């Protein structure tokens, strides 16, 4: 025992001297001015350095330097916002590489896709990554919106950030839609044809819409496509939108979105459910590095009161570097791993080259628009394709301004926001259900097929429908709107009497609009009613 001898001794001595030499050299390097011009602070594990790591780094300083421990909880945000950002960056990187090999010319776009898949090294993988990341991003932004709703993180002062988020959602869908056309195969061509045909049904601005003021040569669809049908013009402008305009817009709005999150403080960091409105808590948090008093348990019911009253046990604050960053890093790796494996396993689809004369049956919109296409069964295109989607977006945007209930910010409080959660979830699940129906239960002719039924067997449709006579229809709609506006306020004044008339009207009209869909579905499926109101100009 004791000092080793012989060869091991020599090796040990050599190792130690090498280590010594290396660390000395390293010490000299990091003392140079060149080094300091790039790396402004040291890397020893001190608190100061940990804080500086975040605040002096352009990418990381999006985060605060410290956050309460509750902010680390993964099961709060599920990392959905960060995942969406990660996917956006991944899409940008893979998109740039794809742009090296793709030319948006209808005569060669499809061949370029084939070349990417077969000749470009890693081309198939690149394409798969891009496509599946795009689908994943659509899913994550929807789920992110759901999460934000459930944690009431849209309530004051965060209303405007929610609006920015809705716009980002629309941009995400448009990015996906514009990119969907680029492979120029049958899926792409007909999905975009179906999607843009809805624009022709726009009231006033669509050639086939009610009260149309325009012709096919200058209506909204022509504006979108640059032509009367999907062709070279559409391909080029969709390419420009997809690669340049929409990403720029998204990047700008992302910057605003993140700025707002920081400025309004991360909602999980509050976890002060007892406080009504966030402004008082915000006052408390103004001092940087302040240790925030936290309440571990959620009180029952919404109780208004000054923050000091809920000061509880000793506060727990975590440094963002390394704790939050470590969690984010892990989430990113896991997400990338899943995406990577998915892209290795399943190839992005590419069917035959686009042909205007060869219509697939059924021709389906991209999956995130299948809900709208399914609604076409129950409503005319101007409602299903223009009015209802418009109402959805408007409704989402106005949501923070219409919600009268201030509680629940910062945690999942379902008990105290039953009505709001019910309404939102109803709409959300209805949307998902429509997509599922459109994807799996609709076959040729948009006829109902169970998922395992073969599409080779033609199913004739025998449905005989009838319409309400116009007086009855008018009466029904008037009754529906009238009762819908009158009754809730009358029956539940404690809930609906607290907000102004204007707000109430907007809220109820949006809710009634949403409810109209399942009602119409019921009328159609059970009573075979096709139109509730038929006029020479439009039908409902």
């Amino acid at each position: 025992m004791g000092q080793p001898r012989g060869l091991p001794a020599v090796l040990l001595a050599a190792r130690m001297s090498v280590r010594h030499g290396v660390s000395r050299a390293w010490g000299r390097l990091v003392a140079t001015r060149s080094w300091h011009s790039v790396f402004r602070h040291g890397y020893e594990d001190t608190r100061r350095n940990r804080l500086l790591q975040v605040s002096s780094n352009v990418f990381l300083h999006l985060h605060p330097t410290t956050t309460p421990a509750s902010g680390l909880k993964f099961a709060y945000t599920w990392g959905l916002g960060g995942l969406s950002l990660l996917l956006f960056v991944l899409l940008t990187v893979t998109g740039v590489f794809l742009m090296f090999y793709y030319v948006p010319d209808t005569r060669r776009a499809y061949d370029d896709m084939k070349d990417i898949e077969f000749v470009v090294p890693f081309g198939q993988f690149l394409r798969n990554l891009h496509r599946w990341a795009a689908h994943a991003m659509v899913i994550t932004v929807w789920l992110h919106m759901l999460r934000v709703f459930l944690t009431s993180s849209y309530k004051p002062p965060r209303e405007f950030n929610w609006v920015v988020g809705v716009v980002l959602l629309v941009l995400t869908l448009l990015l996906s839609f514009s990119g969907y056309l680029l492979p120029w195969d049958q899926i792409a061509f007909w999905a975009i044809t179906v999607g843009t045909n809805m624009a022709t049904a726009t009231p006033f601005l669509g050639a086939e819409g009610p009260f149309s003021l325009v012709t096919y040569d200058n209506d909204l669809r022509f504006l979108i496509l640059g032509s009367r049908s999907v062709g070279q013009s559409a391909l080029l402008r969709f390419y420009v939108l997809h690669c340049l305009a929409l990403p720029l817009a998204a990047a700008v709005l992302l910057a605003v979105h993140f700025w707002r999150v920081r400025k309004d403080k991360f909602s999980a960091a509050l976890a002060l459910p007892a406080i009504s409105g966030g402004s008082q808590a915000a006052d408390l948090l103004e001092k940087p590095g302040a240790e925030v008093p936290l309440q571990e348990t959620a009180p029952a019911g919404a109780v208004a009161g000054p923050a000091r009253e809920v000061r509880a046990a000793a506060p727990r604050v975590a440094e963002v570097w390394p704790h939050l960053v470590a969690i984010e890093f892990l989430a990113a790796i896991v997400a990338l791993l899943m995406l990577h494996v998915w892209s290795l396993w399943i190839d992005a689809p590419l069917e035959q080259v686009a042909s205007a004369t060869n219509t697939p049956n059924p021709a389906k919109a991209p999956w995130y628009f299948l809900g709208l296409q399914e609604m076409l069964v129950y409503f005319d295109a101007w409602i299903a394709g223009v009015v209802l989607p418009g109402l959805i977006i408007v409704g989402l945007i106005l949501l923070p301004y219409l919600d009268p209930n201030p509680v629940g910010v910062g945690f999942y409080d379902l008990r105290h926001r039953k009505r709001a959660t019910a309404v939102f979830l109803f709409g959300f699940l209805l949307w998902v259900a429509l997509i599922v129906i459109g994807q799996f239960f609709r076959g040729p002719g948009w006829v109902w097929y169970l998922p395992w039924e073969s599409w080779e067997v033609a199913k004739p449709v025998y449905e005989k429908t009838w319409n309400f006579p116009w007086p009855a229809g008018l009466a029904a709609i008037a009754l529906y709107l009238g009762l819908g506006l009158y009754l809730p306020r009358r029956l539940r004044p404690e809930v609906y009497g607290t907000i102004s008339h204007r707000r109430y009207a907007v809220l109820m009209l949006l809710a009634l609009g949403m409810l109209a869909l399942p009602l119409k579905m019921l009328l159609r499926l059970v009573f075979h009613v096709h139109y509730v109101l038929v006029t020479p100009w439009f039908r409902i």
Partner: protein
Amino acid sequence: MSPPVPRLPLRAWTALSGAGLACAFAVLVAREANPDWARHQRAFSRFERVEAAAAARAAEDALRQPAAQQQARELASRVEAAETALARLQGDGGYGRARGDLERAERELADVQEDMQRTRAEYQAIEREFLLSQNDEARRHLRARLDELRVKVDALGLERERLASARDTASRRVRVLTAEVDAAQAALDALYEPVKRANADLASAARRRPQVQQFLIDSLERADRCTSCHIAATRPGFERMPEPLRTHVGRYIGDHPSERFGCTICHGGQGRATRLPAAHGRVPHWRQPLLDGDLVGGRCAMCHRGETVPGEPYAAAGRRLFLEAGCHGCHEVEGVAAPRIGPPLGGVGAKVGGAWLAWWLRDPKGYLPQTRMPNFLLPDQEIADLSAFLLSLRQSSSTEPVPGTAAPAPEAAKRGEALFKESRCVTCHAVNTRGGTIGPELGRVASKLRDAWLTAFLREPVRLSPGTKMPRYRFTGREVTDLVAYITAELRDFDEQSWPSPPAMSGGVEAGQGLVRKYGCFGCHDIPGFERSGRVGAELTGYADKEVERLDFGLRRDVPRTWRAWTETKLRDPRSFRDGLKMADFQLSTRERFSLLTYLASLTEEKPPAEYLRDAGALAAYEPEGRFGELVTDLNCLVCHSIRGRGGSLAPDLTREGSRVRADWLRRFLDQPGTIRLSLEERMPRFRLSREEIEAIADYIENVLVDPAVPKTVFAPGEVTPGLVQLGKALYYDTYACDGCHQIGMTGGAVGPELTVTAERLTEGWVYAWLRNSRALDPNAREPVYELPDEEARAIAAFLLSLKERELYRTGGV
């Protein structure tokens, strides 16, 4: 307060997922780094390297042979000797002086050229100044300067010419001196050449790295990457390698260079792909999968339209069958336009008997095995309805029996038989399967046709049956009656009682008309009321690319879901997929079905560009004019003869007939056609043409159907001497042995026409021109081209034209 430390599981999870990501990336890289095509190319390179190494070793071994070593030593010593000789010259001054001269000449030439360039540059600069200058004084100066420079440039040019030739002379002198050394060295290099080349091959084979290979063909808008795996497909010499490293079979690649054609235009498949199974195109969403090997021949027909390609008989046969069987009557194919194959049915009610019609509709091949009409598998009621409708189609009263024709006398039948034979009806019509196939079989025709109709038809065929190929014989009324008497007496089915009985129920004319519309009879027959009707079958343009999803397999679960299986089943059993299908049963043989399958496999949607097509002679259709044209139509000459690319091939081509035959022979022949070739059974029928008609035809032939290259006269007066004739005879029999194929008198071969009547029939210009170059007059002639010199041709011509028929037949030969 100490910050909470990240718990160990977090680090572990991060490490684990990081490792997982690295693994996934490694899988990706592994997959990309060794694609299948690289593997194949490496295998092939290995093979090439082995071969190259063996070749290099063999070359080196050859060099090590004593003979080769000896040669090497001899050449080396030769080189040495030559070099020594040259060295001696060097010292002597001869070689050295020559080299010095050459170097000096080159230097001077270079100097002069430099001067010239400088002067020219200066000229251009001054010229520019001149053009820009506004000042007259300055311009005058500059102009003077420009003139000076021009003179200088010209002088320099002359100087350069002189120096250049001086340099050439010097160079030549040096080369003469070094000639011996150069030659010896070249010989030595040639000895070592094979080894060097073999080693260079080996080096390049070793260096070669796998790379995607492609043919980028803009005219076809394709990129075919098949040769990334099928590396040796276009390189001869690898016929015995295993696939995919094998050379392409046959001479197809030689005939169709891959840079222009690629691979997928014939084979199908997805050219842009580099991986299986995508590359072979047998994947969803690719509409032209790799064709089965035996169907590839069908693709020849995409470009070789109509003509038979050597080694590939099926596609052209399929196309012919498609037209002959009348498929185009129900199925439209773009670019295929052919007349209806069946006889016109206007007036058929007056033409045929009801019993025959019923039998025919029930089972056409049962009545006439060689008919082209398929079996429509009609139930009895439909037969009754169709019969009712067809029998209602009658023409004007000219087919009604002419009053006064009582039962004909037996002599009439005998006279009719003689006339039948004399008119040589069997040239076109078979009687009990003996005879021609241009017209219908006549063995039982009297049981089919009504006498009145037959009578009217023989008088005026075209009026009764528009579009018929039958010529109008100039029969008198009595002759017609005689013929009809003969036909009705002899050419009938004596077993009429054993005919299947027509259906018992009565049929409706309206119902029958509906059936015509349903089955699309107008696809093959002209039917009154349906002249402009469309086709009832599916359009087959682009059928080869029809997706399997669009083929209706109906109730047949046992048929594999492929294009080929569906098509084969359809050709074999058209109505088996489901009830209510209308396609008739054509009772095709296996070979016929395969020919059609191959042809259908050639009907791709993508048409090759025009420069790839090879139409089988789409010449401008010849239309005979005037009185000649009327007669040609009336007599249907072009059914058997061809003129200027239009017509049949049963009889000689008449494009140059005017230059070929003598005028008097022609008139005699038209009046009474005789045998021209002994080896043929048939000869031209006698049409009983009038004087005026014969004159019109002969006149047209002599003036219009001539070849200006055939001279009218050949011999100068007095040129034909007995000596010339003797010479010709000797050439005929001894030198060229023409009697191997041609007959004169009673002796000779029977391959070509007999030459006894040459003097009577052929013009002297034609005989001479033919002997000089027969191919120019008839590209399809079987006579070998002898390229006779002028004197010999004249001699043989003189001999042939001297033959007198009567003498020959009397003497029995020459």
